[in-house]
């Protein structure tokens, strides 16, 4: 193995040469082939044409090959184990659930609709029993019918965390909070269907008996971890290499980190599936180590879209915004980027000291460090993402973060410091992942702001791949003196529970894998979550969500940076494209179509030159395109 020979001096020489080359190329190629507003010569629909609305739906034709590219493979393609947002989105090609998000743009996409089931749940027993009836004609890829027992078995696999680790465990928490069931691989019952809280009176009926009502239970059944799995096809830890399909496509080949190809599942019947349109004949995914290559292929028309959906790189998006604006969408991602203050580290046990940081920070500078209003997002003013019911967006701004204090309010911050008993400021440490250049830039921006109010913050860049073990351990956080932690979070499912429960409920404080970094132990917040899960009407849930958000902000546990946005590429040949809140602003993959079944010759576009690369050593860890984030995760 070698990284080949380069030196610092050579790199500098390269940088200079690259800049010249980039300038020359830009000058030579001249203007744009697109007009940003209403479509382009290449057939692209226009800037933001698919953001919360459907672009070119009528142009979608049956057939062709839909070509994804990605800088990161899925954590697992096993429906039980996957946690990356794009994996959940893509998994609808080969898996079905009892209920799923509507295949419609924006907020509507986050509403549930029946999939394998004939209708939404019949809820009884004060919200503790959910009953579903399965549709006729639903089949596996070998033509055998999908039964209620297959659904139960698929859900039971979530209990086998010792074998199938990695995915969300909400179902386990909701259906078996005491952890009595040991999972199907340790199940001593003959049919391995020993989980008592799910019953299957017949092959068409499935009933869920919750020990305690939870108003988001159906949302959790809409996650891909609730997909059916057939017992005789369960290859346990290797299932993700070739999942057995219940959807319109099945795995043809998969080479981890290289490529994935799906072909039509000929046993799937359109009549049994009101959700999926299954336009293309074939779906391919090509993985890249060098994200520059990926952007270049997208710009060149060799690929239709990015499977990771984490936005283009700074250089790629600069070229794209300038030259191919009609191919771009700028959705809100559903993620909030923020700093949080572990109360175990003094003086952040004092709310006034926390407020001093919030008030003293230059929020515009933080937004700029995140990429600015287009690529970074709107200034975050509170902790509930705009896609979650109960969110008030920037209207709720208790610290005037996007208003009077947007450039930092030194006077108010110093007053807060005085109230905290630290009138001359204090020293602390900002913990930030070393593999996220944007987060490091944000930390530096915050450090500069805090200096103005007398807070001397050192930056500790920790190994980003070891986040769970480093900042997920409260004792380690205390030992290292991390007073400020920089992170991001998005909803697993679009409710306050799906977003905030692991962050804000004291029951979720854990010695390992902790996500309640601020160590919030507020009985009022805990009580509101308890009330939320037993509230069945939507307006009541929305009101509680708003209240929880207010309590979190009043406690000054967080400094929100941005309601994140990103720039995503939409290929010329794509049709029926729209972003969905169900997948945090990603394009809804499952109903993407192609305008032409024959892949058109790529238009000649100005290529990204070396000088416009993403910076750093090509392909080396630390590129700007972050690894796809787990749903809800960092």
């Amino acid at each position, binding site marked *: *193995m*070698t*990284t*080949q*020979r380069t030196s610092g001096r*050579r790199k500098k020489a*390269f940088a200079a*040469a*690259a800049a010249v*080359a980039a300038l020359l*190329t830009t000058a030579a190629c001249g203007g744009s082939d697109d007009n940003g507003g209403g479509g382009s010569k290449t057939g692209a629909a226009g800037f933001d044409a698919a953001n919360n609305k459907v672009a070119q739906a009528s142009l979608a034709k049956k057939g062709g090959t839909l070509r994804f590219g990605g800088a*990161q*493979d899925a*954590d*697992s393609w096993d429906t039980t184990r996957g*946690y990356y947002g794009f994996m959940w989105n893509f998994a609808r090609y080969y898996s079905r659930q009892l209920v799923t998000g509507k295949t419609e743009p924006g907020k509507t996409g986050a509403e549930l609709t029946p999939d394998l089931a004939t209708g939404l749940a019949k809820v009884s027993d004060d919200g503790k029993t959910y009953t579903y009836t399965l549709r006729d004609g639903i089949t596996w890829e070998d033509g055998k019918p999908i039964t209620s027992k297959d659904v139960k078995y698929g859900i039971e696999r979530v209990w*086998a*965390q*010792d*074998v199938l*680790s990695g*995915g*969300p*465990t909400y179902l386990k928490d909701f259906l078996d909070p005491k952890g009595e069931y040991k*999972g199907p691989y340790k199940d001593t019952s003959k049919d391995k269907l020993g989980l008592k809280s799910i019953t299957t009176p017949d092959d068409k009926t499935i009933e869920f008996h919750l020990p305690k009502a939870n108003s988001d239970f159906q949302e959790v059944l809409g996650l891909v971890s609730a997909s059916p799995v057939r017992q005789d096809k369960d290859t346990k*830890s*290797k299932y993700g290499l070739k999942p057995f399909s219940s959807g319109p496509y099945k795995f043809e080949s998969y*080479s*981890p*980190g*290289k490529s994935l190809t799906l072909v039509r599942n000929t046993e799937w019947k359109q009549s049994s599936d009101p959700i999926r349109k299954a336009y293309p004949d074939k779906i391919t995914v090509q993985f890249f*180590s*060098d994200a*520059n*290559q990926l952007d*270049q292929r997208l710009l060149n028309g*060799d690929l239709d879209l990015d499977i990771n959906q984490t936005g283009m790189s700074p250089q790629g998006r600069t070229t794209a915004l300038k030259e191919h604006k009609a191919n771009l969408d700028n959705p809100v991602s559903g993620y909030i980027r923020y700093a949080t203050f572990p109360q175990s580290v003094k003086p952040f046990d004092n709310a006034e000291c926390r407020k001093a940081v919030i008030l003293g920070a230059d929020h515009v500078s933080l937004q700029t460090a995140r990429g600015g209003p287009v690529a970074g997002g709107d200034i975050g003013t509170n902790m509930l993402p705009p896609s979650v019911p109960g969110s008030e967006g920037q209207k709720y701004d208790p610290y005037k973060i996007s208003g009077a204090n947007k450039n930092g309010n030194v006077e108010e911050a110093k007053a807060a410091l005085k109230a905290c008993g630290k009138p001359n400021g204090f020293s602390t440490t900002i913990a930030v992942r070393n593999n996220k250049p944007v987060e490091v830039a944000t930390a530096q921006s915050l450090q500069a702001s805090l200096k103005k109010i007398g807070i001397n913050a050192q930056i500790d860049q920790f190994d980003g*791949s*070891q986040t*769970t*073990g*480093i900042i*997920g351990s409260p004792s380690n956080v205390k*030992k290292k003196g991390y007073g400020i932690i920089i992170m991001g979070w998005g909803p697993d499912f679009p409710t306050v529970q799906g977003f905030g429960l*692991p962050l804000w409920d004291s029951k979720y404080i854990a010695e*390992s*894998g902790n*996500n309640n970094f601020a160590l919030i132990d507020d009985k009022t917040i805990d009580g509101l979550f308890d009330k939320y899960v037993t509230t069945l009407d939507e307006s009541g849930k929305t009101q509680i969500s708003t209240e929880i958000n207010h309590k979190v902000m009043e406690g000054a546990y967080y400094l929100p940076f941005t309601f994140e946005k990103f720039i995503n590429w939409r290929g010329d040949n794509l049709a029926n494209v729209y972003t969905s809140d169900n997948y945090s602003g990603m394009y809804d993959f499952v109903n993407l179509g192609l305008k032409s079944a024959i892949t058109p010759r790529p238009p*000649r576009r100005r290529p*990204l030159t*070396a000088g416009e*690369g993403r910076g750093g*050593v*090509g*392909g*080396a*860890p630390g590129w700007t395109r972050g690894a796809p984030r*787990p749903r*809800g*995760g960092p």
Partner: protein
Amino acid sequence: MLAYLIRRLFAAAVMLVVIVMVVFGIFFLVPKWAGVDIASSFVGKQADPAAVEAVRQKLGLSDPIYSQVWEFFKGIFAGRTYSGGGDVTHCAAPCFGYSFRSEQAVWPVLTDRFPVTLGLALGAAVLWLVFGVSAGVLSALKRGTIWDRGAMVVALAGVSLPIYFTGLLSLAIFAFGLHWLDAQYVPLDQSFGGWFGGMILPWITLAFLYAAMYARITRATMLEILGEDYIRTARAKGLKEQVVIGKHAMRSTMTPILTMLGMDLGALIGGAILTESTFNLPGLGRAVLDAIKNQDLPIILGVTLITSLAVLLANLVVDILYAVIDPRVRLT
């Protein structure tokens, strides 16, 4: 000769054992000292302590480090079985570990990726040897001429420009701009033409860097040798210039070139990370880069071993070739 070979192979084996132990130390001991739990990185965001413990057992992370090293070596010859939570995974011999990230045994990954890297390294080596050595010899013979200066300026550019610049630039011009060459890798068993076409730019890019270095080394060595007494004697004897250069000077010049070639080829076979990632070639370099990104320790360990093995073998071959090229060298 045989005794020499046996001695060298034994030394190589000892070296590999030391490398395995050092790599194990780096990846399994250092994080432990830093308070990082490797097992927790395998269980996802909602880390269930029982799941972390199960993963730890399955991976043998709670065993002492010497036991882990021993199990690793045993697996190479006898295969290995990983079990936990009712799931049994068998890794057939030669088992160089098992990636629980991608659920693949390491050895098939290495054998799948190796031909891509080998093709890249050998193809580029042919180019850089032909062009680099020729340019170096001609520069030395035409010292001070425009040819010499021009060749050395190009060589300087080649040495100075890193792969990720020349690679991206060549892609931008020849693949995405002029559409002369395809930037898509096609496996050799699918289409020879497709494979060859897809490899042209990576070969040229990689060879450009190395050819430049070889040209400079060849020129310097050749100039030194041309001043030696035996070259003067050969010329005084009335030998033709082609014979003086081709037979006498070239032979001595090739000794350091061969040393470099052994080292470079060995290192490249372990994965040309930048070239493979720039051109998206699914070789060992990309495999190890992805593994580093995903903290996939077994793959990193496997590729490190292959790299070490390749370097050791390449050096052994070079040592043997010394005797062929330079009769003064005796292998005893």
